[in-house]
Structures are given as structure tokens and as C-alpha cells.
């Protein structure tokens, strides 16, 4: 029938032959609904055409309420599904199945019958299953009624000459083997790792499991040679490893091996790291006939290990840089403080200023800090009346926040030693704003009032060098220091949108 369809026999001829055949035939859609049925089938099942068409098979025939019914249904269903999924004819030599029989026009009883059935898939030109043909025969009458206490050993069966009994026992064995095989296939299909079986020197996909389908983006690769099925692997070494396993019969093992896969048409290549093994499959003569592929996608582990390494490297880098910064502060502070006690005080104050800004940044997971919060931190020790902070909220990047924290510390220290905060009534006004929205710049002025008259220092100490260098070097900004008669005025401008790459 399959052959006839593919050879283009006239549909009308087939329909006539189907309807008139003395053999009982039932046509099912792939989801096991009744598509068509011939008269012989209606006769043998004592049913009516309108009751069957379009219904699910196992609703139309449920084998009745008996204890055996679910097992009977299961066997028929398994055979049909096997025929459909493997595209191969399947025989059910012997199956019990109950049918209703009306006794007196209204009372219905189920009667167990014994059947033999063949299930044949009907394929279209592309090889897809269009319909399933069931050919079934009622063979109940071929069975001699067995006394209930008859021994049923294999020997009895053979000696007893009951071919049908033997057929039944073979059928039973087949069923057990089938069950075993299905369990293995199920394990293969559901295995968490990816598994595929390739055959021949071109490595055609014979079978692959769900995890393999997931890995390659659920492409249709069944039956295709690997170079056609997964063309993006060209140049990545995998074809060559397979060729070599096929040629030499030696297994190949890959560890954290990079495979670049195009999991959707037109999508960019995705990096996957795989642990896998290619094992040769040999025939009875020892000849390599295929390759068993199994493995795991370890991409997550590989990336996690890399992230961890890069975080440790980055942490090490930051710690060493911070130590170098502290070293610099220590050496330079020591040069301007010959007395160990004043050195300790000045050094400690600078380290604490650095630490304060770290605290602020830690609160935002090092995303940034607010300008006012930094100013408040560096000036709160002088009390609320001495400082007047006036300006909008400005979010500062971590590097800018660290630099400005140190700068404000130096300015405040300087003011308390020589400037407005060295007198009882001196004040400091800090005003700021952000100019130029396309390339935002922070403009800030630090004005000391009511302090002693100040003059530019003869030699520039570490504090003022640190301020100027930090603004120009680290922040690419500008600073202007004016020593007015009322006190120091510092005007500074810092670009806010510097990317780290600049």
C-alpha cells in the first residue's frame, strides 16, 4: 500500500479496493483518530460507520470494563505508535480485545476476542506519516478453549502442538523485550547529558536525545551527515576528530572544548564549552560502522570559573593599587612631618578619608556616591555651623568619588590649620552645580570667609600637590587656587562623563 501510494496509483482505485476488500481495514490519523473504515472491519467489530468516523480509536473501542482492558489497549496503542514513530510496519501477532455485544437489543455485555493485527504507516513524498492502516483479524475461533487448570510450561505447549499457544508465548517474550528496549531508549532520550549515534564515514545522525537537540537548537538533523547537519562547525576540528575516530577506531575525548554553534538560522555563533567523548561502534567483524557521541555542556562551569578568576585578578589588582596609594601617602606624609606623632595623626586622617569614601561606595555596591554625602563626611567633624553646602544631587563615579573625597579632606585640613576654620568664626561656603548637559561638568567653589589673611605658601606641601595632581591627572579637570584677603578660594571643574577608557 505504501509502495502503491508513492508510485502514484489512482486514489479512486485505492478507495474502491479498500472499501470492497474482504480484509478488515481501518485508517487512522497519526493522532490515532479514525479516518476511514471498510465494511469488513465494521462487520467484524459489529459497529456502525457514523459511530466511528473522527473519533479517537480508544474511545470508539475501549476493550470494555474488564480487568485486562487497560493492558489490551496499551498493547494496541504501543504497536500503532511504534509503526508511526519508526515509520515501519508493526505486527501484533496476538492481542486480546473485548467488544460489546448486544444480547437482546438493549442489554450490552463485553465479550473478549483474540485478534491478530498489522499496523502499516502510509507515508507522503517527504517520508512523513500521513495515515496508519490497521489490518486486523479475529482469530478467536482458532484457539481451542483451554481448561483452566491446564499446565502451561513451554514443553507442554510444544508437545501439545498448540502453535497458537507458542505464538502467544513468543509474543509475550517480544513484549518483555520491547518493554526493556523502550526503557533503554527512554533512558537514552531523557539522559541529562547529550547523546547521539552517528553512522557511516559521513557521520549521519541515526539517533540523538533531547539534550543533544537542546544543544544544537532543535534543528532537523535526523539522517543527515554532520557536515550538512551542523555546517557552522567547519574549521572547529570536530569533523576531523570524528573522521579520525572512524578511521582509527580509537576513542577521542574532549575537555572544556569550545564549540561555536548557530542555534537559530541567522543568529550569531554561540560559544559552548563541552566535555565529550567519541566512541567507535563496531560491527560483528570489528569494523567501525559508527560513532557514539556523549557528553555534557559545561559552559556554565567554565564561565563561572573564568568569572571567579577575573574577579580574583581584579581584587588583587585593586588591593595592590590601594596598597601603593597608601604607601605613597605614607612616604609623602613622612616628608612633611618629621615628628612621628604629627606624622601618625596626619597619615591616619588621610587613610580614614580614603576609607570613608570606600564606605560610601560600598553602600551602593561601587556604582557611585553622592557629592553632598562625601562633603558631609569630610566636614562633619567641624560641626554643622561652619560649613554651608549648597548644590544639587550629583552622582559621582567611584574613581571621581575617591579623588574628591581626598581633595575635600586636604582642603578641610588646610582650612583648620591655616584658614577659616583656624579662627572661632570662620566659615566655608561650598557651592556647586552641573553645567553643559551634553558633556556634564561639575563646577564647585570652596570659599573660606572670616578667616585670617592667607598668603600663598612658599613651598607647596603634599596636600596642595595632591589636590592639584588629583584634579588634573586623575579627573582631567581644572583647579584654580586664589589666596584672597578673606581666605582661600578654590574653584574646580571636573568632567562627569569620563568613561574609564579615557
Amino acid at each position, binding site marked *: 500500500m505504501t509502495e502503491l501510494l508513492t508510485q502514484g496509483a489512482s486514489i479512486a482505485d485505492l478507495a474502491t479496493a479498500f472499501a470492497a476488500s474482504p480484509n478488515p481495514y481501518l485508517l487512522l490519523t497519526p493522532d490515532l483518530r479514525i479516518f476511514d473504515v471498510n465494511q469488513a472491519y465494521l462487520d467484524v467489530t459489529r459497529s456502525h460507520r457514523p459511530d466511528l468516523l473522527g473519533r479517537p480509536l480508544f474511545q470508539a473501542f475501549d476493550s470494555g470494563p474488564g480487568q485486562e482492558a487497560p493492558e489490551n489497549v496499551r498493547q494496541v496503542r504501543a504497536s500503532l505508535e511504534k509503526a508511526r514513530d519508526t515509520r515501519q510496519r508493526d505486527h501484533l501477532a496476538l492481542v486480546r480485545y473485548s467488544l460489546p455485544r448486544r444480547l437482546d437489543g438493549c442489554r450490552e455485555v463485553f465479550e473478549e476476542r483474540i485478534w491478530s493485527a498489522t499496523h502499516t504507516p502510509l507515508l507522503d513524498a517527504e517520508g512523513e506519516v500521513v495515515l496508519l492502516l490497521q489490518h486486523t483479524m479475529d482469530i478467536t475461533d482458532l484457539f481451542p478453549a483451554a481448561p483452566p487448570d491446564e499446565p502451561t510450561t513451554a514443553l507442554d505447549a510444544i508437545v501439545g502442538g498448540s502453535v497458537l499457544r507458542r505464538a502467544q508465548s513468543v509474543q509475550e517474550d517480544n513484549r518483555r523485550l520491547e518493554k526493556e528496549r523502550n526503557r533503554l531508549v527512554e533512558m537514552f532520550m531523557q539522559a541529562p547529558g547529550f547523546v547521539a549515534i552517528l553512522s557511516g564515514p559521513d557521520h549521519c545522525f541515526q539517533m540523538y536525545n533531547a539534550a543533544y537537540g537542546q544543544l544544537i537548537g532543535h534543528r532537523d538533523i535526523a539522517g543527515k551527515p554532520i557536515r550538512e547537519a551542523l555546517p557552522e562547525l567547519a574549521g572547529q576540528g570536530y569533523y576531523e576528530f570524528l573522521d579520525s575516530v572512524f578511521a582509527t577506531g580509537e576513542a577521542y575525548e574532549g575537555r572544556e572544548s569550545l564549540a561555536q554553534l548557530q542555534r537559530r538560522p541567522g543568529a550569531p555563533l554561540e560559544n559552548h564549552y563541552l566535555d565529550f567523548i567519541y566512541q567507535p561502534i563496531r560491527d560483528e567483524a570489528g569494523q567501525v560502522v559508527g560513532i557514539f557521541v556523549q557528553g555534557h555542556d559545561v559552559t556554565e562551569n567554565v564561565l563561572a570559573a573564568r568569572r571567579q578568576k577575573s574577579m580574583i585578578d581584579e581584587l588583587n*589588582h585593586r588591593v595592590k593599587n590601594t596598597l601603593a596609594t597608601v604607601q605613597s601617602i605614607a612616604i609623602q606624609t613622612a616628608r612633611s612631618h618629621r615628628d612621628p606623632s604629627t606624622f601618625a595623626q596626619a597619615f591616619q586622617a588621610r587613610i580614614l578619608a580614603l576609607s570613608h569614601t570606600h564606605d560610601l561606595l560600598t553602600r551602593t555596591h561601587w556604582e557611585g556616591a553622592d557629592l553632598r554625602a562625601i562633603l558631609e563626611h569630610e566636614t562633619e567633624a567641624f560641626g554643622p555651623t561652619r560649613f554651608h553646602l549648597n548644590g544639587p544631587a550629583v552622582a559621582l563615579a567611584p574613581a571621581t568619588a575617591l579623588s574628591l573625597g581626598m581633595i575635600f579632606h586636604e582642603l578641610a585640613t588646610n582650612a583648620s590649620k591655616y584658614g577659616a576654620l583656624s579662627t572661632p568664626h570662620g566659615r566655608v561656603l561650598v557651592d556647586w552645580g552641573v553645567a553643559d548637559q551634553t558633556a556634564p561638568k561639575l563646577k564647585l567653589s570652596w570659599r573660606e570667609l572670616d578667616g585670617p589673611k592667607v598668603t600663598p605658601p612658599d613651598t607647596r606641601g603634599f596636600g596642595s600637590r595632591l589636590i592639584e595632581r588629583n584634579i588634573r591627572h586623575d579627573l582631567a579637570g581644572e583647579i584654580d587656587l586664589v589666596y584672597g584677603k578673606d581666605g582661600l578660594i578654590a574653584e574646580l571643574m571636573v568632567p562627569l562623563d569620563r568613561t574609564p*577608557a579615557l
Partner: protein
Amino acid sequence: MNQPLSGRRVLVVEDESLVAMLLETILEDMECVPIGPASNIDDGETLARDTVELDAALLDVNVAGRQVFPVAEALKARGVPFVFSTGYGEGGLPDEWRGSPTIQKPFTEAAVRDALLKAMGVAEV
């Protein structure tokens, strides 16, 4: 004390001003003349190419998120010896630069001097 590096002009590429200031202090103590410091790769490359008299360079490997190797290339092309400074140590350098004299942060004056001498000695071979 004898200062073997007296008068040498040494370029400094380092994005953190405090660390740059430390290097300058160390170089001045060794009677060297610090050039720069450059706080980014572009300025570093310009100074590496255009500074007429240049005897050596101290290059921070990670400069504001970029790697300093373009500056090293420019120096190499002129035959000017250089020393990498890094928080990672020599293991943090890519293969092609491995083996170059390297100082690890935080650094001592002796380490800076020895690395510069080694770099200049290698260059004279």
C-alpha cells in the same frame, strides 16, 4: 652614595596620581628626571614617541581600564627600555610581554632601581 641612574630621563605612565607621585619621588631620589606622568594611554603614546631624550619608562599595565601595550610598542620601536608596574606580577602579563622587567605594587625604591637597571642592561646587549 653613587647613583647609577643619575640624570636619566624616565617616562611614567600611571593613572593614579598618588602612585605617580610616589614613582616621581622615588625617581627624584635616584636623581632621575621624571617625564609625564601620563594618566592615559593616548598621552603615554604621544610622550613615548615625541619626547626627544628618553632613557627608560615605567609603565602601569592597567591604565584607566586599558592595557599599556601600545605605549610599550612605541618604546620598543625606538629601542627605549621599559619596566612594567602591576598589581598582578609578571604572571599577569600576556605571553608576548612575559620576561620583561616587572615591578609589583606596592614597590620599594630598590625594586624600581633594580628593574630599571635590568631593563637598561638588557637594552644595551
